[in-house]
Structures are given as structure tokens and as C-alpha cells.
């Protein structure tokens, strides 16, 4: 059994971690078994280099009432790396007996979702967990404890009203050197709602003629039910100097643990449990609007307007602030005036700590929606609380509101509460029904056709740029332009010569000769006018025209010269043959580009 407890304690002490890119997010509970009437603390710890940490979300709180119990942050700089540790505490009060899972808790940082493992907790009926008593210290321990170190616990009041603050103080006295920071374990506070108070600075005190360094821890407690309530023992663990042990030990002891811990002893100190008597709130003269607030409070109730229209809400902003159990302040009770609907439009809470007093405020926004026009007097907002110092109830009252409501009750659509003026002047009722069921497809916007349409201008722009580039090249590169033009011009020339077959031979072959020279000039970007046969041969050689094509071309040119200058009268067939040969040669040269 002892082993099982030890194992459970170890498992509880090991938090469940979620690590994501340098961030860790862990959850732990201070106990896994508790009874009805007890409460447990759920602690969420986020560690990493994060500047702004949002509030974590707890997905499943089962049959527990959940209260946020504060947040603390610690930032460290190590080797230029900033590490922040943020701790969120939640108090969970069980409602039912059984085994429940709490969580997982979730946290979203920079789009990354961190999650903890759920915590399993068993809730037992009240009184089923035996209270563990501290082992009775030996006389020597007591003597030594009183002498060197000891712990005391006290409360500022032992008799309070339900929901009245009790300030619990634990003092740790030390007159010897400690080997390590003492570990503090707060007491169980079943039957109380607790709030941690700011840590106190250490100071020196003299007790029984001896000077002690005293460290204080304070906690505000609010009893949740009447009767005798017990605050458990606070525990402090520390390691103290033990010179006797240092010299008494066997110098040849091979136990390394003992060897390195020579001269120190671990001490567990427990404070005395404290009983607090919680008195019930007086019932005889309890005001009707009392909702359980205990403390010293003030109230401010403001109306946002004094005139409105039918169905248009007028809002009362009620702020209640002061010292006391702020959590116990509930929404003020208001009687719903006739012809009005009342609803809670918003609320917020602020908790403050002034010295050892817990305080703060709550703000409620109540909206009153008139159903009819007219002049109305809305009753003042009232709020009552119990003042434990005065031992009586105190009632606070705001100002009543004289409200003018304009507008009409009925409308074309059969609705009350909307004035004609408020309505869209172009529309005083619903528009006509659609007679056609229409297509099932949705809007053209966002459809594939819509996105395809958007590509058209890009294509148009691309085509324009391409064409412009081609044109620019033609205009700037004469060689390219002439070469490209050669093919077009020669085709046109051949067509014209074929059409002029009735011309005299000299003129016919003259045209053929000119066309061939112009083609060669354009094709190879040279001045064609007045080129000799030798120059043409050199040109064809330099452009690596195949021998047979070169010969054919030169033969054609020779034939044309013969017809032009020697009076040769070729037949029609010879003309056709010459033209066909020209076409073949040109086609071959074009093909070799």
C-alpha cells in the first residue's frame, strides 16, 4: 500500500508535457483522490520563448465547478535566450462522486495547438478519506526545531461569517544555514475558497532571545459554508546543517549518497491545523435583492440613454466594487417592468489585492427592451450585501430612469416593435417570392469559368508582348528582316513571272534573273544589284550552299543571261522548265535554313 502511494505521488509529481518547437505545455493536479466538499488545484505551466501567452482552454471539466485562481509569470535570460514560464492555476470543486477526466487543456500560440494529457481524478463521498496526521515529532526533534527552525500558522480571525475573508499566515523561522531553498506545501483548505496573496519579504524577528530569519506566506480564505471549518497543516521541507553527523560517520563508509550528504539533514516541518468557525449570515432581515455578496462594496448604475424606440434596448451598466468576496457578487436582481424584456448583455470581473485584502469589482450590463411606445419609469437598480464589520445588510440604490419610447407596435409584416422610420425606406415588407427554383450551381464568382476568364487578359498581354518583340527584332535586325522577307518576296515573284508567260524572252528571263538576285541578296543580306557571276559563286560558297544547288542556280542565271543578251528564243516548254528549276532551287535553299 505504501508502495502504491509512493508510486501515485511520483506520478502526480511528474507533469505531462507537450513540447512543440521549444515550447512546453504541461498540466498537473495537486491530488488525484479527493472527497466531496474538498477542492483540487489544476496547474498549467507554459515554458518557452513566448512574449504573449493567451488564456489556455480546458476542454472538459466534467462535473466540477471551475474557478480561475490566478496567473504568474517568470522570465529568465540565459546566454541571451529569453525563457518565460507562465503558470495558470484553476480551482476545481467536485459536484458528484465518481472518476472523471479533466482536460485536455489546449493553448494556441502562433497557429500551433499545444495540448496536455487529460488528468484523471477520483471523487469520493465526503468523509471517506482518512485525514493523514503528521508523525509526532520526538522530543529531541521538537527541542531542536524550536531551537533552530520551526513553522507556525495563524489566522487573523477565528470566527467569521460565511464568505468573509480570513487571512491565513504561515511563518517559517530559521536560525541555521539551509543547504537549499525550503519547499513549501500549502495546507488543505476544504470548505474554503482560497486566493493567494502576494509573497511577503523576509525579515528578522527575535524569539526567546534568539534572532530568526522569518519568511511569511499568506493566503486569503473565504468559508463557503457555515460551521466549523479546518485549515490543514502547512508543510515545509528543508535541508539543514548537521555537524554531529559530519563527525560521527564512519570515514570508510562507501555509501556515496551518505558521503555527499554528510553534514546535512532533511527536515520536514508541519504547522498546527487551525479551526475557523464560520457563522451563517443572518436570515431574519435579509433583503429580497441579496444574492450572497459579503464585504464592503459600492455601486454605480448608469443608463446609456433616456429615450429610445420600440425594440431598441436601453442598457444599464452596473459596476460593483470594493473589498470582500468578489466571486460571490451575482447579477443584481431586477423586476422585469411590464412591456419590457430584460436580459444580461455582458459581464466582467476584476480581482485586486490591496495588502492582505482581496477586492475588485464586477460589471454587469442589463438590457431593457421596450415592446411598446410610451413613457415609462424604470425602477432603480438595487444591490444588497452583508457587511461583516457592521454585522448587518447594506442596500445600495441607483437612480430610476424615466424613459420615453417612440415607435409603433404593428408593422406590415405583422411584427410589433419596429417603427416605419427605422425600416429601409425603399422596403417596408419582404420582397416577392422567387417563382423559379433556378439552377443548383452557385454563383459565377469563384466558379472555374470565372477564374478562366481572369486568365484571358494575361494571355492577351503575353501575346502582345511576344508580337512586339518579334516586330522589334525585325526592325532592328536587317539581316533577320531581309532573310525573313526573302521567302515571301520570292514566292510573290515566281507567281508574277508565271502569270507573265507571254512576255518576250528577254523580259521574261530578265524578271527571273532579277528575282533570283534579289532573293540571294535578301537571303544572305548582301547588296544584290550588279553582282557578277564570280561574286555570286563566292557568296554561295561562303554560305555553304550544296554544290549541286549552286550549279543549278548558276546554270539558271546563265540561261537568263543567254535569253537577255544573245537573242535566244526559248520555247514555252523551256520557259516552264526554267521556272520549275528556279522553284526547286529556291525550295531547296529555303529548306536548308
Amino acid at each position, binding site marked *: 500500500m505504501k508502495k502504491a502511494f509512493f508510486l501515485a505521488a511520483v506520478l502526480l509529481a511528474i507533469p505531462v508535457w507537450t513540447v512543440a518547437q521549444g515550447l512546453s505545455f504541461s498540466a498537473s493536479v495537486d491530488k488525484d483522490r479527493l472527497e466531496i466538499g474538498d477542492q483540487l488545484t489544476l496547474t498549467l505551466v507554459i515554458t518557452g520563448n513566448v512574449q504573449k501567452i493567451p488564456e489556455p482552454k480546458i476542454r472538459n471539466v466534467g462535473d466540477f465547478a471551475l474557478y480561475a485562481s490566478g496567473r504568474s509569470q517568470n522570465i529568465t535570460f540565459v546566454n541571451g535566450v529569453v525563457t518565460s514560464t507562465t503558470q495558470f492555476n484553476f480551482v476545481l470543486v467536485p459536484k458528484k462522486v465518481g472518476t472523471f477526466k479533466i482536460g485536455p487543456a489546449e493553448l494556441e500560440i502562433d497557429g500551433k495547438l499545444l495540448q496536455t494529457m487529460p488528468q484523471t481524478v477520483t471523487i469520493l463521498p465526503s468523509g471517506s478519506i482518512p485525514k493523514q496526521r503528521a508523525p509526532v515529532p520526538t522530543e529531541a526533534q521538537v527541542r531542536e526545531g524550536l531551537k533552530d527552525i520551526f513553522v507556525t500558522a495563524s489566522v487573523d480571525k477565528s470566527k467569521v461569517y460565511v464568505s468573509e475573508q480570513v487571512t491565513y499566515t504561515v511563518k517559517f523561522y530559521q536560525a541555521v544555514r539551509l543547504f537549499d531553498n525550503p519547499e513549501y506545501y500549502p495546507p488543505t483548505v476544504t470548505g474554503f475558497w482560497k486566493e493567494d496573496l502576494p509573497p511577503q519579504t523576509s525579515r528578522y524577528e527575535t524569539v526567546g532571545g534568539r534572532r530568526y530569519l522569518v519568511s511569511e506566506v499568506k493566503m486569503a480564505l473565504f468559508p463557503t459554508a457555515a460551521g466549523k471549518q479546518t485549515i490543514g497543516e502547512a508543510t515545509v521541507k528543508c535541508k539543514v546543517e548537521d555537524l554531529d553527523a559530519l563527525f560521527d560517520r564512519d570515514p570508510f563508509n562507501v555509501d556515496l549518497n551518505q558521503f555527499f550528504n554528510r553534514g546535512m539533514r532533511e527536515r520536514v516541518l508541519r504547522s498546527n491545523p487551525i479551526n475557523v468557525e464560520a457563522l451563517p449570515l443572518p436570515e431574519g432581515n435579509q433583503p429580497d435583492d441579496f444574492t450572497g455578496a459579503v464585504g464592503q462594496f459600492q455601486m454605480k448604475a448608469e443608463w446609456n440613454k433616456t429615450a429610445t424606440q420600440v425594440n431598441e434596448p436601453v442598457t444599464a451598466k452596473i459596476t460593483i466594487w470594493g473589498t470582500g468576496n468578489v466571486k460571490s457578487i451575482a447579477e443584481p436582481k431586477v423586476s422585469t417592468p411590464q412591456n419590457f424584456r430584460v436580459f*444580461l448583455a455582458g459581464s466582467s470581473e476584476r480581482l485586486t489585492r490591496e495588502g492582505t485584502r482581496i477586492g475588485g469589482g464586477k460589471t454587469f450590463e442589463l438590457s431593457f427592451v421596450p415592446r411598446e411606445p410610451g413613457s415609462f419609469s424604470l425602477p432603480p437598480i438595487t444591490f444588497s450585501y452583508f457587511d461583516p464589520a457592521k454585522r448587518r445588510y447594506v442596500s445600495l440604490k441607483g437612480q430610476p430612469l424615466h424613459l420615453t419610447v417612440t415607435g409603433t407596435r404593428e408593422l406590415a409584416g405583422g411584427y410589433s416593435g419596429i417603427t416605419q422610420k427605422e425600416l429601409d425606406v425603399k422596403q417596408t415588407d419582404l420582397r416577392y417570392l422567387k417563382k423559379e427554383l433556378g439552377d443548383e450551381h*452557385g*454563383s459565377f464568382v469563384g466558379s472555374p469559368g470565372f477564374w478562366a476568364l481572369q486568365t484571358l*487578359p494575361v494571355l*492577351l498581354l503575353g501575346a*502582345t508582348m511576344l508580337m512586339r518583340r518579334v516586330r522589334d527584332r525585325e526592325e532592328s535586325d536587317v539581316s533577320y528582316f531581309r532573310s525573313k522577307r526573302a521567302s515571301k518576296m520570292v514566292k510573290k515573284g515566281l507567281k508574277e513571272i508565271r502569270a507573265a508567260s507571254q512576255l518576250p524572252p528577254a523580259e521574261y528571263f530578265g524578271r527571273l534573273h532579277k528575282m533570283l538576285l534579289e532573293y540571294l541578296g535578301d537571303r544572305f543580306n548582301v547588296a544584290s544589284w550588279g553582282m557578277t557571276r564570280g561574286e555570286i559563286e563566292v557568296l554561295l560558297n561562303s554560305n555553304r550552299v550544296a554544290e549541286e544547288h549552286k550549279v543549278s542556280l548558276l546554270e539558271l542565271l546563265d540561261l537568263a543571261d543567254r535569253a537577255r543578251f544573245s537573242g535566244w528564243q526559248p520555247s514555252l516548254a523551256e520557259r516552264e522548265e526554267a521556272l520549275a528549276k528556279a522553284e526547286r532551287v529556291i525550295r531547296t535553299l529555303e529548306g536548308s535554313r
Partner: protein
Amino acid sequence: MKKLLTLVTVFLFTVPAVWGQENDPKKLFAEANRLYDAQNYPGAIQLYEQLAGQGVRTPALYYNLASAHFKTKAIGQSVLYLLRAQKLSPGDDDIEGNLRFVSQFTIDKGTLSSPPLAFFTELFPLGTWALWGTVCYFLFTGIIALRIWFKSRAFLLRWGTWLVGILLGVFALGFYLSWSWSKVPKGVLIAREAPVKSGPGDDFVTQLLGHEGLTFQILEEREDYFEVLLPNGVKGWVKKEEAAKV
């Protein structure tokens, strides 16, 4: 035997015809419209919903269903179906008009989108941004193409490029923001009144009470709850059974 054959023949020819008539979407729609005109709004809703149950999803069906719900004073349902119709047919003037009209009957007022976004999303519907954005886009690329082709630095083309370019920028931004906004999941409160909780459970504090027709942005969806962002900037949790996704 002859009688049996006659019966089978009658069955084979009449039943599919009657069945087909009863399930013909266009006829059902016309019948629902007739019931609406006869002020039998619950009957019309039943037929419209039967059509929706058959998988018909048209802006006209949602639009008419919204009108019928409005007549039965179900403001939340009316807003819901108008938003669904608007999602299918952004820019439809009738849908926009009825949505403005019905929204005046909701208790919780306010625009869902944040101020810079609201300016664009409320100035024009998505369809208008898309139409004028596309026109400017074609004009702009046309002017650029002309300038490239003619290598022109003419005053008119130069200033035309700037003017149309600025217009294109505005409409493109408007379209982008409206388009992104249209893709954000939204919901509508359909229960008459529903608490907006601080967490996904009954144990959490009620931050405020929402009323039917309250539209919200859905931030997260859980088994029983939506995490919502309300028009007033409040984040909270709403039970799924009290709301519906647009």
C-alpha cells in the same frame, strides 16, 4: 388473371407518375409558393424543407424558405436561410434587401466583420466587387497591351494606366477581402434566446444572452459547442443545438 394484369399495368403507369409528380422539384417548389401565397406558411416551410432534404440547394429555395420562416416569426431561421442564399448568390439584390429588412427585427445589432474589413464587405456585395474588378482588370491589361504595341507615351494612355490601375487596386482589394470574408465560417443563433458561455460547458459563466438572428463568426467547432466571435468582439461558446452554421 386478366384483372391481375390490369392492376399491375395501372400500378406500373400511375404510381411512378404520381411519385414523380410529388418529387418533381419544380412542382414541389411551385406548390410551396402557392401555400405561401395562401398564407399557409408552416405548410410552405414543410415543402421547401422537403426539397432541401432532397438535396436541392438553390438561392431561390433558401430565399423563399427564409421568407416563410419570417412570416412565422422565426427570425433566426429567416436570417440563416438568407445568409445561405447569399452565400450561393452573392450580390443578389432581393436577397440583400430581405436580409437588411429581416435584420432590423433582430435584438442584437452589429456588424460581424472588423472596421477595415466591414468598409469593403458592406460597401458592395462580392458580385459587384468581382464584376467591376474584372472590368478594371480587362481595361488595365488592354491599356498596357496598347502601350506595349504602339510604344506609346501618349498623355491619355499614360494617365489612363494610372487611373485604371488605381481603380483596379481598389476593386481587387475589395474583392479579395470580400472573398476571404465569404470563406470565413459563420453561424446564426436560431434559439429565441441562448447564453454565450465563457467555455464549452454549462458550468462556465454566462457572458451574455444572445437572441435569435444573432450572427457570429465560428472560430472553432467542438462536439456540442461552437466557439464564436460576436459582432461586439466578445468571444464565447454557444451550444450547437441553439445555433446553425451558414
